[in-house]
């Protein structure tokens, strides 16, 4: 009959310290939408694992530590063993390192190069623009896997080459977006104002246009990252990926694919890892994009 929440109790609740107050909590929430925070958590999780990987692995990632291949999860092998009887947890920890490092570096390289070239094409004369556009069109027509095949055949398979390959494979897409962005920005009033002021091209490109390209390019970065992760695992399918015994997450899936029929953890776990990592990156970036958008836009229609 008697309600537990007396008025007194309520007022006490209301008087709780500031850091617990709903208002403060909400304000922090406003900083990044819920999905963005989930993304951030996932990215941090994988980044942490990638950083700490070598120090926390229970077994050497290349060592055959079990006579059972595709062993199920156990105390000794928390995530089971792989097709050779190696410890899966150790391999995933090291694999995440490769995927996070390589794919992230390649995606950054692709986006950065694309941005710079796009900017160059937009502010330089017609001929530079034509030439760059045609050249990158030409690059698009060579499927990324086949491009990778050629690169590895010519230069061998090493981390720098993989990075270069992945970056080159996706630079054309970034260029397309960056160029159209830069072209749009280069006719904006503030760029016009800078021109009328007598600013040089370099200043206009780097100081006036570039900062305003960062956000949209970031939004594009998430998908690009994802496609690079996908491409790296595709490379492992063709036997071109990271050098064994090291393996990125995609290669882990590939090398344990024969366990799929039995639903081995060794193939499912890296797949989940890849999915969570890429989804995390995209959620985070979407969140950042929403967050960074100018408030309200409250003007009239």
């Amino acid at each position: 009959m008697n309600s537990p929440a007396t008025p007194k109790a309520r007022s006490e609740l209301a008087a709780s310290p500031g850091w617990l107050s709903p208002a403060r909590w909400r304000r922090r929430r406003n900083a990044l939408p819920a999905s963005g925070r989930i993304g951030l958590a996932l990215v941090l999780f994988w980044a942490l694992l990638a950083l700490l990987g070598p120090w926390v692995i229970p077994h050497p990632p290349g060592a055959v530590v079990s006579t059972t291949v595709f062993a199920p999860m156990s105390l000794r092998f928390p995530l089971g063993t792989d097709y050779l009887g190696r410890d899966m947890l150790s391999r995933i920890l090291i694999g995440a390192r490769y995927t996070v490092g390589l794919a992230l570096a390649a995606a950054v390289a692709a986006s950065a190069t694309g941005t710079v070239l796009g900017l160059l094409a937009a502010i330089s004369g017609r001929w530079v623009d034509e030439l760059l556009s045609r050249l990158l069109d030409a690059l698009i027509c060579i499927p990324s896997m086949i491009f990778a095949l050629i690169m590895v055949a010519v230069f061998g398979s090493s981390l720098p080459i993989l990075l270069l390959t992945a970056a080159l494979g996706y630079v054309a897409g970034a260029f397309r977006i960056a160029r159209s962005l830069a072209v749009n920005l280069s006719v904006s009033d503030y760029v016009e104002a800078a021109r009328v002021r007598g600013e040089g091209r370099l200043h206009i490109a780097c100081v006036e246009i570039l900062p305003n390209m960062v956000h949209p390019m970031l939004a594009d970065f998430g998908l690009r990252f994802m496609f690079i992760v996908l491409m790296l695992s595709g490379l492992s399918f063709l036997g071109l990926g990271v050098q064994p015994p090291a393996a990125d997450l995609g290669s882990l899936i590939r090398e344990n694919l024969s366990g799929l029929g039995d639903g081995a953890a060794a193939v499912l776990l890296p797949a989940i890892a890849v999915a969570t990592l890429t989804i995390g990156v995209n959620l985070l970036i979407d969140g950042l994009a929403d967050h960074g958008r100018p408030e309200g836009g409250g003007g009239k229609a």
Partner: protein
Amino acid sequence: MKYHQPRDAIRQAADLKRRQVLHGFAAAGALAATGRFGLAGAETPRKGGRIRVSSVSSSIADTLDPAKGALSTDYARHYMIYSGLTQFDSRLSAQPGLAVTIDSGDATLWTVKLRQGVEFHDGKPLMPEDVVYTLSRLKDPATGSQVLAIASQFADVRATGPREVQIRLAAPNVDLPVILADSHFLIIQNGTTDFRTGIGTGPYRCVDFNPGVRTLGRRNPNYWKPGKPYLEEIELIGISDESSRVNAMLAGDVQLINGVNPRSLQRIRSSSGHTIHETQSGQYTDLIMRQDASPTDSPEFVLAMKHLLDRDEILQAVFLGHAVLGNDQPVPPSSRYYCPDIPQRRYDPDRARFLLRKAGLPRTRLAVFASPAAEYSVDIATLLQESAMHAGLDLHVDRVPPDGYWSNCWMKHRLTFGNINPRPTVDMLFSLFFRSNSPWNESGWKNSRFDALLLASRSERDEARRKEMYWEMQRLVHDCGGVGIPAFINFIDASDRRLRGYFPIPIGGLMGYNFAEYVWLDE
């Protein structure tokens, strides 16, 4: 990708003093073509039906020209459409094919008697000129023949009668009948230059050939072996991805496959409709240590590496037990010339560490090249790297794509992996891969005692003494040869349970690629 072909010819034939005629066919040749294996008799092969067979690869370079065959799918295709002068039996001896007899007095001049009444698929009869054309073009460099080196020993090939061809070799070679059973020596029609379709005398006519896609063969009703073949149609494709290949068979899309990974066996076994054909063979993947470069030329290093191959682990982890322990020499236990007295070399990191220190190689970093092209070499290399670490040797695996491995990597670096297919004779094996001046002497190993024994063995007609020589050669290779052979790999094929007539010919999978002639489909 697996390459199988007889290697270089035996240029220096043994000093044959024999005066009596050499008969090309082993005694087993008396076995009738129909009942070649023990189970014969109980079942009568059913005629008709259609199967799809998948080999391990297929590409734009697929060919209908036997001279150019480079991959297992090519061999299977060629055996399906063409016939050779001789044929392998299950013990890799030569049996009569288009040739009824092959005789020689001195192992240099061979007389081939052709079978009568054999017709090509276009209805033309088989003529001695066809044989002359086939064999002659193999030694023309412009042909792009895969067996140019072997064929160059054909000093002269000529028709000497309506059904007779004479082959004069540059030097004596007792193994010619066995060599002629190889797919590259299958007989094509005189004057053929266009290989968009294949006209042969084989069990199946070529109905459709699309490189990299498929080959469709339809039963040749005029095949020279009466009653054969049994199936109405065979479609031959190549699926390079192993799990896809196995899945395709389990799903019922193909009926016969080769190159099954031991890891897939469990799944195939659990399917009631499928059966596994496993053949012990002489195929091996070996670690090659070049003897013409430092530090791999150091005997201590070589021995240390051989001790670092953890054979039991390799057998277990890589092959899941579907291989036979190797002992760093190329003759498999199944061979009658196998030497059982050599003690099995074991994994011994401490001894390896000692040897390495003795060689003055502590903490050396070395690259070992492996490739999917040399089957299982990547996994073996990975395990080797791990065990080498225990001996203080820093190996680093350089996995090379299959593309270009054989031409650019194999034997070109200090540590590489090779993959050697079975050979019909021990002599061929030793001559091709271990004789000092052979182009495929993988490690560049030079041993005069070995070379002398090889020469002597060719002229040695006493079986026991010949065996003794082979044993000593095996010891030499085991002790100081530049290759580490951890295991002999079993051929694993799998098929639909209704597919019958399968028996192993241990030169390769798919019954040594000869399945087309023998298999039939039960109801």
